[in-house]
């Protein structure tokens, strides 16, 4: 923590000299870094290294106390557990919400496994895979001391159906439990207790049973999302719930002012004996929001805050200072689970021809695209296929188009493909890219330059990024605008092939608006592989199907993957129990963090 020397006289004198100092700004440059002052604040002991919290727990501790200080440049979408969809919100939500099951609180890929949270054990699943039964632990309480019941769990899940009032969150549970949309949500529920959803039964206060119309191997992953958090009916303030969610976790939300910040303190009715997941080490947790991301990075490096709430990576301006030898021990470089890529809609000419698509895939300069994303550290590894390493069935070594052999692209082979597709002299096309994503614009420019080498004249169209679902998410508009290449990125909502790939390549997920299957892939073989994987009895069996699915997607050459994304994230020297978790896109597992050594 930075301390500031006091003394009004000094400050008064300081005020007077500021103007003079500002005049000499041109001579200030980056400042003299010969002093090791900030190194004293931030450098860790000799054992701590760059990436020290990736794959292992750093500074393990059980000491309680202190204030854990988050800072972020992006606000929560919602604190309402049924409405939140941002990845960092899901990580943060474990402070004030508990679910039946939750990601395992361990580093790395193992964190994608589930462990019981409010439930005594993982689900008892029926032989046909359609019934999931849980029993709640004793002693799980709300912040006012009343017990959390199975009916609270059911009511919380029912809130997902009230999309006309509570929009924003994931609707997987709605799609799986009520695919025909018969239930209208608790606010229109005519049942006296407002618990009319037939697919969930609560025979007593401790038991909850889910009845699925058809099996889904990832159902528990959906129950691990914050959207499956219990909400108590008498505390449901509907759309205002986001401003003051009622806690059943180790902390309660004392205040939340959107766009400004939040303050959390201990929930006295949370019983550690019922919770094997959350360490609950800090006494208080604060969130400060800013619009100046560069200054945020500087304040993190100066030790004024502990963690970047959003964890979207240290910005370009502060990167050099963060990676300075005296600071780099405080930097981690985890995989985020996102893939950055270009996709070619098969209903836009000439990309209806697979050889035209292959010309783009092999002709692109993969190294240049990686550099445009920020390089190997800030951008990530060159991606050679469309499954992230944390997903079952992924094979990072699978490189069907030999990107690693030809990192700068294979111009000769690309020209062969152009001949095969009947365009030996190349063709014209349009690259669509979101205007509010500078790195995506940079990759579009990089791709434009490499395609020019093989004779493809690609114009870049920067569209309003806030209107994605209505612009590139509307296939008719994509055809109308002749978008031959779309720049995008994707991360899984839950760490399976269903969670990552199904919206992208299952033909049954093609929508008129809000579509994510931009390539318009509708291959019955791929669709069947999803069905087989979802009906699989074991994760290993499902992984086999997802591996085949990934190979078929690569064969179709509709995707040009850029990077398996990595971020550089700052870790303050105060942090204890710190590790990155694949379950939260490489962020630190917030529920485990402490600040007292």
């Amino acid at each position, binding site marked *: 923590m*930075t*301390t*500031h*020397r006091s003394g*009004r006289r*000094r*400050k008064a004198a*300081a*005020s007077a000299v*500021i*103007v003079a*100092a*500002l*005049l000499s*700004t041109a001579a*200030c440059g980056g*400042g003299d870094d010969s002093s090791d002052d900030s190194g004293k604040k931030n450098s860790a002991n000799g054992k701590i290294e760059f990436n020290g919290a990736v794959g292992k727990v750093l500074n393990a501790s059980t000491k309680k106390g202190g204030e854990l200080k988050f800072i972020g440049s992006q*606000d929560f*979408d*919602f604190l309402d557990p049924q*409405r939140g*969809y941002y990845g960092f919100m899901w990580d943060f939500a474990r402070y004030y919400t508990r679910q039946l099951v939750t990601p395992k609180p361990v580093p790395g890929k193992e964190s994608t496994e589930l462990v019981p949270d409010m439930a005594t054990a993982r689900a008892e699943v029926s032989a046909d895979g359609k019934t999931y039964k849980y029993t709640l632990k004793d002693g799980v309480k709300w912040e006012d001391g009343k017990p959390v019941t199975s009916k609270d769990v059911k009511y919380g899940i029912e809130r997902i159906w*009230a*999309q*006309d*009032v509570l*929009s*924003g*969150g*994931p*609707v997987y549970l709605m799609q799986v439990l009520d695919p025909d949309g018969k239930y209208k*949500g608790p*606010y*229109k529920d005519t049942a006296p207790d407002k618990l009319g959803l037939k697919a969930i039964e609560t025979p007593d206060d401790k038991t909850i049973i889910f009845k699925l119309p058809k099996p889904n191997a990832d159902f528990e992953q959906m129950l691990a999302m914050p959207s499956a958090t219990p909400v108590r009916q008498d505390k449901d303030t*509907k*759309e*205002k719930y*986001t*401003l003051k969610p009622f806690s059943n976790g180790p902390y309660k939300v004392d205040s939340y*002012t*959107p*766009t*400004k910040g939040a303050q959390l303190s201990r929930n006295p009715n949370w019983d550690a004996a019922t919770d094997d997941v959350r360490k609950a080490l800090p006494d208080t947790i604060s969130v400060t929001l*800013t*619009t*100046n991301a*560069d*200054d*945020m990075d*500087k304040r993190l490096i*100066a030790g004024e805050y502990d963690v970047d709430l959003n964890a979207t990576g240290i910005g370009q301006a502060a990167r050099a200072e963060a990676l300075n030898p005296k600071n780099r021990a405080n930097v981690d470089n985890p995989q985020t689970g996102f893939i950055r890529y270009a996709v070619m809609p098969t209903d836009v000419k000439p990309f209806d021809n697979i050889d035209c698509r292959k010309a783009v895939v092999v002709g692109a300069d993969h190294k240049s695209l990686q550099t445009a994303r920020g390089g190997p550290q800030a951008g990530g590894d060159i991606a050679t296929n469309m499954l992230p390493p944390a997903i079952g069935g992924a094979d990072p070594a699978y490189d069907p188009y030999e990107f690693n052999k030809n990192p700068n692209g294979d111009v000769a082979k690309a020209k062969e493909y152009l001949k095969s597709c009947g365009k030996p002299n190349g063709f014209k096309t349009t690259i669509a890219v979101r205007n*509010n994503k500078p790195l995506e614009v940079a990759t579009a420019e990089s791709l434009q330059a490499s395609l020019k080498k093989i004779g493809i004249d690609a114009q870049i169209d920067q569209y*309003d990024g*806030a*209107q994605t*679902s*209505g612009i590139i*998410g509307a296939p008719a508009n994509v055809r109308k605008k002749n978008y031959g290449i779309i720049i995008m990125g994707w991360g899984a909502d839950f760490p399976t092939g269903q969670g990552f790939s199904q919206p992208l390549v299952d033909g049954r997920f093609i929508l008129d*608006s*809000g579509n994510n299957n931009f390539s318009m892939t509708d291959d019955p073989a791929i669709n069947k592989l999803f069905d087989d994987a979802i009906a699989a009895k074991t994760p290993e069996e499902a992984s086999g199907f997802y591996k085949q699915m990934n190979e078929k997607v690569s064969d179709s050459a509709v995707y040009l993957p850029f990077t398996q994304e990595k971020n550089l994230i700052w870790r303050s020297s105060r942090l204890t129990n710190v590790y990155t978790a694949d379950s939260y896109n490489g962020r630190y597992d917030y529920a485990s963090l402490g600040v007292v050594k």
Partner: protein
Amino acid sequence: MLAYLIRRLFAVVLMLMVVTLVTFGIFFLIPKMVGTDPATMYVGKQADPAAIEGIRQKMGLDDPILVQFWEFVRGIVVGRDYTSGGETTHCAAPCFGYSFRTEQAVWPILLDRIPVTLSLAAGACVLWLLGGITTGVVSALRRGTVVDRSAMGVALAGVSLPIYFTGVVALAIFHYKLEWFDATYVPIEDSFTGWLEGLVLPWVTLAFLYAAMYARLTRATMLEVLGEDYIRTARAKGLKEPVVIGKHAMRSTMTPILTILGMDLGALIGGAILTETTFNLQGLGQAAIRSIGERDLPIIVGVTLITAASVVVANLIVDLMYAVIDPRVRLA
């Protein structure tokens, strides 16, 4: 004077109505004309049709545009209700709209931020008026000397260097390196010294830019005024130089300065976006920039209207002050 005041107030109201109409049109009519649906911006990654319809209902997007405008204006005067899915949210007057991103009425959000922006604008204004006018007068009186050239050189630097540069340099030196200032805003009711400490850097940075402009304006105007016949007459009558400058020359010099001050202060109250962003001051400017990034249209409309109102009112005050500082101006 009273009749003039009434006329001007009527003009202010009319002007604000026009601004409201234009602002509303830009944010709600144009999207409709180009075929985009603002509701799709508020429904998240999985755009459920019921969610889109809920937002459309709540925003009243299905109503004719004139009805939407009438409801908006009526809301400012008497408040309004937003209904969706059978649930009604009341927005008390003055209701400048409802933010679907934050689930809050716009006015309380902006009201919470106004003290920050007012603190920034008022403090910086005092500094730049003191610094700018003094520098300009001294330069004019020492025309052609080293003092004049140095002062105008400084002023040129002030005008040329953008706030996002001087602000970052000020933070780098005085906050991060020397640690003299905390550079974190503290409400004045929590701690007066904390408030001062948190605002010194933003004040000085902002004032540096404006003082430079005011110094150049003051110098030019003062030089022009000093050449006027009545100044020569005052000197010929044997008045002391401080009286000639302070009483006679300054009054005329202040007229254009007041005019530009009205515009500048009004715009600043609407939000000093760069300064607030650089120093992370949670004022109206930062609300505006965040809302633009998140396409939170109701907040953008609210900030725009407050900015317009500030400029119009500040100009009204300036017009009234003309009579005070310059007896030649008669208002009625």
